[in-house]
């Protein structure tokens, strides 16, 4: 009796692997879309996909081999059967599907084709020493004066930065779609909120060309504003930019 009941465990193992695949491939992009409140699906990266599938297969194998009994019933699916028509059909399906899958695997591996370009980048490169000690000259002025400078900075921001970074600093300016490396969304707390003001000063002054190689300077459309804007203007823009985005710069840790 027990044998009959458990003899489908290989099918269950395969099915559960397929279910894992379907969830990661087709369901999770939409779950993450809703959870992270994005307006597009979030496809699982293919390397992650591979590891999840390996884990899924290992999990299934660990399960079917937890006891000799389970392992035996797992293998017993391969035994001939007389009366069970479904089992016969499933056996045939596996016998046909396995070599085909293998063939498909070899085909995709060897067929010439160009892979998608890999464009990994470091988002927050290390701040150059030159800028490390730099301080915003307007950080210690009176509150009234500060408000005035912020306003001047906001106007400068709208003039010079708005086409790409957008009127509300969300990285959606009219030019944004043209750059595959999208202009930074300053309202995202993971961007300018995590750096000190002098970091922003460095990025504005040296732009894309001033980035280290790991940050793919060749893709960044950020202009180097050195020579166009004065130091004072850039500090004001930084103040205006943080204010427009509604985030505050990271404060420097006090060194003892």
């Amino acid at each position: 009796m027990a044998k009959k009941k458990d003899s489908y465990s290989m099918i269950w193992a395969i099915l559960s692997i397929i279910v894992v695949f379907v969830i990661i491939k087709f369901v999770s992009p939409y779950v993450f879309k809703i959870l992270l409140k994005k307006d597009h699906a979030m496809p699982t990266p293919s390397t992650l996909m591979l590891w999840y599938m390996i884990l899924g297969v290992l999990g299934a194998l660990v399960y079917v081999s937890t006891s000799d009994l389970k392992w035996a019933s797992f293998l017993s699916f391969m035994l001939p059967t007389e009366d069970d028509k479904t089992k016969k059909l499933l056996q045939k399906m596996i016998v046909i599907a396995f070599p085909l899958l293998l063939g498909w695997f070899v085909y995709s591996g060897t067929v010439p084709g160009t892979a998608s370009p890999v464009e990994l980048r470091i988002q927050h490169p290390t701040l150059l020493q030159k800028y490390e000690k730099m301080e915003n000259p307007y950080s210690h002025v009176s509150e009234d004066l500060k408000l005035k400078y912020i306003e001047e900075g906001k106007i400068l921001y709208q003039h010079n930065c708005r086409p790409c970074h957008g009127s509300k600093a969300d990285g959606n300016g009219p030019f944004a779609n043209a750059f595959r490396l999208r202009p930074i969304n300053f309202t995202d707390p993971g961007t300018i909120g995590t750096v000190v003001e002098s970091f922003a000063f460095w990025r504005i002054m040296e732009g894309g060309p001033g980035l280290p190689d790991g940050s793919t300077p060749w893709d960044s459309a950020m202009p180097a504003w050195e020579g166009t804007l004065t130091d004072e203007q850039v500090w004001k823009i930084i103040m205006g930019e943080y204010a427009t985005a509604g985030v505050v710069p990271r404060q420097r840790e006090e060194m003892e």
Partner: protein
Amino acid sequence: MRMKKYELCNVLKFLKLFIMSIAAFILSTQIGYSQTSQLFRTYKKEVSSKISETNEAIEAGKKLYEKKCYYCHGIKGDGKGSAALRLDPKPRNFVRNEYKVRSTALGELPTDEDLFRIISSGIEGTAMPFWSSLSNEERWQVVYYIKTFNPDFKEKETKVTADEGNIVPESPESVKKGSELFKEAKCIHCHGKDGKADGPITTTLEGVWDLPYQARNLTKGWLFKGGNSVSDIHRTLSSGFNESPMGSYAGYLSSEDRWHLAHFVKSISRGMNTEVVLTSKIAMDDLPTVPDDPMWDTINAVEIPLAGQIVAKPRLWMPSVDSIRIKSFYNNEDIVFLLEWDDKTNVQDETYSDAVALQFPTKIPEAAQKPYFAMGDSGNGVTIWQWRAYDELLENKQQKTDMNGSATATDGGTSISEAEGADSVKNGEAESDVKVPDEGANQEGVAEQEPPKPKFVGFTNMQEMNAKGFKNVALQPSNSQLTKSMGSWKDGKWKVMVTSPIATNDKKIDIQFENGKLIPYALAVWDGSNSERGGLKSVSSWYYLSLETTTPKSVYFYVVIAIIIGTSIQFWVIGRVRRFPPKV
């Protein structure tokens, strides 16, 4: 003994499942995932429940307005904010009734809901963002404050809604009817025959009288103001745009006809089909010979969005061309590209000429590192091929005079080529002199297998340059100028066909198109009528070109071997298990 068998089976079973998972992974990567990151603002019709229009609400709206909106729309609401200088189209002036996207009849003020929708949706192609960062309540407050700029909002309470009529479903007949109405209702006078905004009125207003009125390019669906659904288009046809040449057609066409027209307009609009990798298709027979070759219609174009060049001075804040389409074919000798973009006018002079440029890294990068996307950097150079409408005109004219004058064009080649030397002058006239010797010099390598039938008849030379940054641009020596091009302008659209040998002898300065490589490319477009020249241009970032490959027969051989091995292992395992059945 039996235990050992078990272990063996265990391993094999594991292998089988592992391979299956790999296959599943491969399957999962088959569905392409393009890395474009376009986010087009769309017209959202949902409106949240209104708050009451109290003085407090207006006051709160004023505070928000003076914190977020006035940079463009001005502190007085007159559209003269400080940022307006670099905006095209200009920000809305709230003092006048120049509201465009409305549900009300022409000349009427918009409803509160209309204003709310625009604040929530933003307008694609303009600086107006979608104010998702404001709460619904805050958006209403801003709506109420904006209304205070124009006293008519208080005085004229009743608003006439634009007539919707009964919806006519889409059908080929309706689209056909609409296409006739498009001519009858004189839409073509502004929007142009093919909807590319190149109608005679538009070009006169803009080009001759310098009035900032631009008809919408109806082929670019993502740029429609107030949405691009058929009902949105119908609404625009019914309501018209206040204070613009786009009037209401409610009195002129019946609602039914407006639906037909809307279906037609929808049918000529397209979405932006951007792909990170452009595939150059193998041409089995001959390559296309002219820009209008029907062969080009057999493949799909990739559309690349463009932005003003703002990386270095001089910066272009208000570009004219916002996208370009590209297609490509190749055979074992040449690669050809077709570049298509919309440009209302074809007016050329020496300084301000329509132009397009293709940029490649001089050497295909091995790793991820590429030259700087804007004309390379000191470490990594780029090759640039530039076509200029004016140069082409000049060269064609020159060739005609040559032909008429004497037969020098056919035989005089090589001797002048040596005299020209390496430093050719970067100027139209000099170029056309270089033209003839080039023919002789370039063909040297290919001359033997060259059939008597000449390739690319009527094409002129492009300017081939090498750059290592903006300030470090050099024209290639005349005997290295191998790329040729032919432009054709018709009904508000440029088509420029570009050709280059797949491989050249100048490996140090020319890109070599290799199979199986991802070849970065970037594009730039100049619109002479918009006073664009030099650094004032529309640019794209890096995209990739890949030459289509045929599947070698060996692949199928490997597949067959894999299937045979797989089948044998499988039957061996099954046989083992059946001979020594597991004890349950």
